[in-house]
C-alpha cells in the first residue's frame, strides 16, 4: 500500500489551526514522509479528487458548504475535524444565539442583503457528516495533532482525555483562578491542552469543548459559593459552548 493521501479543506474559520500545521517545522517532514498531501490550499496549488484522509477545518455556516462537506465525506475513508470550529462549531456558533438577519446587518451593514453573504445557522462538521477523529482546541495542539495522525497510521485508537482541564491544572500546581474571582470553565472542559490558560493565570474559556459528561449543575453551585452571578457563567459558556438553538437564559 502506498502512502495514505491526505487533503486539507477549510470552511468558516480563521485558519489558525492550519497555521499550527504549517508551524510544525521539522515534524512537517515526518508528516510529508508518511502521507501524500494531495490538496492543501494554504500551502500548495494542486487540487485532487482522490484522497484517503480528509482534514476539515472550520464550521459549516452556509447551505452550499453542507453540500461541499458531504462531497468531501463521500470521497474520504477517514475524516478528521480540525480545531474547535470544526469539532464543536467554535466561536462561529455564537451567532446561533441571535436572529440571523440581525447578525448579518450587524456584520455587513447595508450590504447584508447581497446574495453571496447568504448565511445559515452554524454547525460543527459532525452535525453534517460523520467525523472519525476530532482534534480539539482553538487553536489545536500540534503534538496532539501529530499523535492522532500516528495513531491512524498504526491503526490504533488515540487516547483523548475524557476528564476536565482541572486534572492537568492541578498536576501543574497552579493556584485555581476561581480564587481570584475568575469564572473558569476548566471543570467541564475536556483536558489535553496541558491547562494552557490557567497555567498563565487566565480562566479556561472552554475551547476544547465539554467533556462527555459535564456537571453543569455543580458549576452553578460554585457560582453561588463565590458570590458570582449565574449570568457570568452562562455568558462564558456561550463563547465555545453555544448550541444549534439559542442558549437559554
Amino acid at each position: 500500500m502506498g502512502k495514505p493521501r491526505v487533503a486539507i479543506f477549510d470552511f468558516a474559520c480563521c485558519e489558525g489551526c492550519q497555521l499550527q500545521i504549517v508551524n510544525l517545522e521539522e515534524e512537517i517532514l515526518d508528516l510529508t514522509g508518511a502521507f501524500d498531501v494531495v490538496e492543501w490550499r494554504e500551502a500548495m496549488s494542486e487540487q485532487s479528487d482522490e484522497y484517503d484522509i480528509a482534514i476539515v477545518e472550520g464550521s459549516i455556516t452556509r447551505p452550499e458548504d453542507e453540500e461541499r462537506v458531504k462531497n468531501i465525506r463521500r470521497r474520504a475513508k477517514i475524516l478528521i475535524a480540525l480545531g474547535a470550529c470544526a469539532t464543536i462549531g467554535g466561536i462561529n456558533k455564537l451567532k446561533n444565539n441571535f436572529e440571523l438577519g440581525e447578525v448579518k446587518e450587524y456584520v455587513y451593514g447595508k450590504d447584508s442583503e447581497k446574495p453571496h453573504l447568504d448565511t445559515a445557522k452554524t454547525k460543527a462538521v459532525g452535525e453534517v457528516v460523520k467525523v472519525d477523529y476530532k482534534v480539539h482546541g482553538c487553536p489545536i495542539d500540534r503534538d496532539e495533532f501529530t499523535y492522532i495522525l500516528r495513531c491512524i497510521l498504526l491503526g490504533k485508537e488515540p487516547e483523548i482525555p475524557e476528564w476536565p482541564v482541572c486534572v492537568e491544572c492541578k498536576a501543574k500546581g497552579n493556584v485555581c483562578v476561581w480564587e481570584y474571582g475568575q469564572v473558569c470553565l476548566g471543570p467541564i472542559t475536556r483536558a489535553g491542552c496541558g491547562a494552557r490558560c490557567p497555567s498563565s493565570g487566565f480562566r479556561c474559556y472552554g475551547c476544547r469543548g465539554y467533556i462527555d459528561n459535564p456537571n453543569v449543575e455543580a458549576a452553578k453551585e460554585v457560582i453561588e459559593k463565590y458570590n458570582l452571578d449565574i449570568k457570568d457563567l452562562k455568558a462564558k459558556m456561550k463563547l465555545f459552548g453555544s448550541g444549534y438553538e439559542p442558549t437559554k437564559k
Partner: protein
Amino acid sequence: MGIKKISKDGFSGLIEGLIAETTVIGVQSKGDKFVYDLLGSSANLRLDYDVTILPPKKYFLQPAEILLRFDGEKYEAEFDDEEFVLVGVHPYDMIAINQIDKLYSEDNFDSHYMRRRENATVIACDVARASENVFASSMGTATVSEGFDILLTDIGDFYVAESATDKGEKLLGKAEGVSTAEDEDLKAREKIQEENKKNLNKHKLGCKPSELPGLLEKAYNHPIWEELGKKCFSCGSCNQVCPTCYCFNVQDEVNWDLKSGTRKRVWDGCLLDGFTKVAGGHEFRKSRADRIKHRIYRKGKYVPEKIGGEIACVGCGRCVGACLTDIANPVKIYNRLIEDIGIGK
C-alpha cells in the same frame, strides 16, 4: 541516632553548601501560597509555611515520567539517577511518603519510585503554622518519627535537629553552629509537638482513625454517596493534590518511524471518568457517586487493609481547599456517617 540543635545561621550555611554541590528542593512562596521548587538560595526557604499546593510526592512519583524507551525490538528502562535534597517536608506529608514506600516496595516493587526515594535526602520539619484546612491532629499525623533523614523543629533562634539515618547524621556533621540539645531545648520541641497534636485540627473527626474501616463497612448503601455525586465534577482535583493517591496511567507514545517510542506514566485518579476503563473499553464503577465512594473507601478501608491498618488520609486538608464544590472533605463525610449510623458493632 542523635538529637542536636543547630543555629539558624548554621542551617542557612548548610543549605547554601548543599545548593553549591547538589540539587536542593525546598518550600518557597508563590503569591500567598507555598510550593516545593528548586531552591536557588537559602533565603527563599520558607520553613514557616502552612501547606504547599502540591505535596512533595511529585518528586518521587512525578506527574508525568518516562518509564522506558523502545526501538521496535528491545526496550530499555529509563531511570532518573540524580541525587537530591528535599527540604521542609511536614510530618503528615512524611507519613504519606512512608505509606507509599510500603505500597511500592512490597507486593509491586516500583523501581522508578524506589530509585528516586533512595536518591533523596529528606529534611522534614514540624509544622510552625496551621493551614486553613489541616486536620492532622485528628488523623494522628501531626508528628512523625520515621522516614526522614533529619527532622527540624523551630524553637526560636535554633532548630532542634534529629537525625534518623547515617545520611542525616553525616549532613549535620558537616554543618557549622551545631551544639548539644539541652534539656530545655528538648522541652521546647516537645511542647511544639504536643501542641501540634492538638491544634492542627481545623476539621474534627468524630471517632478514632482506627474506627474508620469498621464505620465504612456499614456505609455501602448510605445515601451520602448519591448526594455528593450530584455535586461532583469528576475533576480529580481531590486526587491530584492528595499526598497518598498513587494511581497512574501508562501510555505508549510511538515516534514517526512507527516503531520506536517511549512508555510514559501520568497521574491518574479514581474520580476521573475513564479511570475505570480497562482494556477492551469495558467500564465498571461508572457513576460519580460510586467514584466518590471508592475514593473514601480507598483511604479509609482498602489501603489500610494493605498497609497494616494506617488510614490513607493524613489530614493535610489539601482536597478540602481544592474541591470547588466543597464536597471532598473526608472529615465531613465520616462525621455524617458517624451521626447517621454510629460507630461500634
